[in-house]
């Protein structure tokens, strides 16, 4: 029996954008306020899981053809890569740096290498979360 999920599908179409935006907002606010890679990643991951619940695996997979195990692995690579980057500059392991840059149109912005590390964390969380949910749902 096919359940009638018109309401769910319609609501999700709008809501998923709000969730993803919130995820990105949390990710970037993490530097100076509550948030960060882990929490941002969790929210982004739950947005993706919501898509998987509403639509079936194939539909979502057509638009997002990622192997989420590899997304997680790439995240770890990014995070550890930014951590050992400091070895090249002969600074202690995990050292981070930051600076203010003048970017055309956007104006002066505060850029940090921590963001790369956090992006790695976020990707790892998204990859792991989605992989866990998908492997549970594949089980008959």
């Amino acid at each position, binding site marked *: 029996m096919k359940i009638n999920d018109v309401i769910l599908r319609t609501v999700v179409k709008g809501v998923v954008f709000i969730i993803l935006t919130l995820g990105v907002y949390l990710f970037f606010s993490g530097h100076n306020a509550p948030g960060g890679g882990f929490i941002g990643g969790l929210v982004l991951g739950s947005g993706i899981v919501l898509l998987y619940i509403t639509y079936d695996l194939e539909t979502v997979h057509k638009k997002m053809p990622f192997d989420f*195990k*590899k997304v997680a*692995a790439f995240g*770890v690579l990014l995070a*550890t890569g930014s951590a050992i980057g400091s*070895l090249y500059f002969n600074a*202690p*392991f995990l*050292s*981070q740096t930051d600076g203010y840059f003048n970017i055309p149109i956007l104006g002066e912005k505060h850029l940090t290498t921590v963001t790369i590390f956090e992006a790695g964390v976020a990707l790892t969380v998204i990859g792991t979360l989605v992989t866990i949910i998908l492997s549970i749902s594949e089980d008959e």
Partner: protein
Amino acid sequence: MNNLIVLPLIIPIITGVILVFLRHSIMLQRVISTITMITVSIMSFILLEIVESEGIIRLDFSGWLPPFGILFVADSFAMLLVLTASIVTTICLLYAFSTIGKQIETMFFYPFILFLIAGVNGSFLTGDIFNLFVCFEVMLLSSYVLVAIGGKKVQLRESLKYVLINVVASWMFLVALAFLYGTVKTLNMAHIAQRVAEVGQEPLLTTVAVLFLLVFSLKAGLLLFFWLPGSYSVPPAAVQALFAALLTKVGIYALIRTFTLMFPLNQDITHTLIGVMAGITIIAGCMGALAGRDVYTIGTYNVIIGVGFILIGLAVGTEAAITGAIYYLIHDIVAKALLFLIIGMMVYLTGESVIKNMSGLIRNYPLFGWIYFIVLLALTGVPPLSGFVGKILIGQGAIEAESYILLAIGFASSIIVLYSLLRIFLASFFGETTISFEDRKPIPKGAYGSFIFLAVTIVFIGVGAESLSVYVKDAVNTLMNPSVYIDAILKG
């Protein structure tokens, strides 16, 4: 500051993650993982040399000074274990190449081996007790996967028990950490040691210490080893060897570090407790080894006897005993790895695990049989092989401290170890062979290579004990005088 210290942790993690992308190119995975482990072994040796000449070195992550930041500390004790663990892992990988099978290799086998060794190395190197918890978890999560890899029914049953017991143990570890942080307000191991020494080890702190003893005993298989024989006998042989060689040793390392550095003051309670537990562990392990009818049972109970024996060294606590414990720890890592690789090969060759059903292996594989004989002698403690130095020094320490009961139990266990292993030798290697020379399965060259490497290492540790003694002496000096460690971290 020396960034070299973090490499034994971070190199395996990064290459392990890269291997995830190379899931189906097995040849490349083998090559990369071997190169990684050889590199880590060389790095560890260089670090050991540096520590020997310059004293304890530390690395404050991202420049946060102790006691505020997380740090890695390299002293001789930790580096000796990192070096041994890395070498043994390299050799076990060599064995895995020729025996493990393509199906398991594509299931992220090599990445998880690398994550396991990263966790093990991290646990040895960290100078922050919460970080120790994290590294334990890295190691355990990989071991959960490796217990179940292959997905046989018996593996799933045993892995469920293994996961449950370890999750409970990790939870208790966290509770103990919370109590510790609540009482001394710090997590840096050197700082904890300093503060415990300042206030004296009052009953509350001793209770916390006993809680840590309980947690690490679960991990090390000291007295609380009921989970060990089951879960160590189900994974593939190369993984069994790694587990038997490394996992319990990390628990033992944590026990030695905790009770020489952080809680050394109330020895009447803690060290007596460790002594009693070690004694009971050995007796129970001997019973298991005597009663065992199959190679796995005998092998796993021998692991338990080894754990008890090393911790006699800690319980006695004199300089000679601790020296012996370090020697025996190194010996046990190598010898148990070889024992389990051989056991795995026996089962592979005959398709049987019950010793009575195997017979005459030495006729078809003479070298294989004599290598088993070497490991048998080493585990018993026959000179000049690796077990001898450790046993004699622990014995000497026990006599100095007049703990004759532990002495008697320890040395009686050697006879039981000899008997249980000799039983395998007589039943399975000697006697009439049931398989003719033409029909025998050949032993893969890689497996032979790993047996020979490990056997050579065993002989080297025994004969070359003198060349190791500079490092061991330095390690003992740090363990016996916690102030050396504390000063290296907090002053300078």
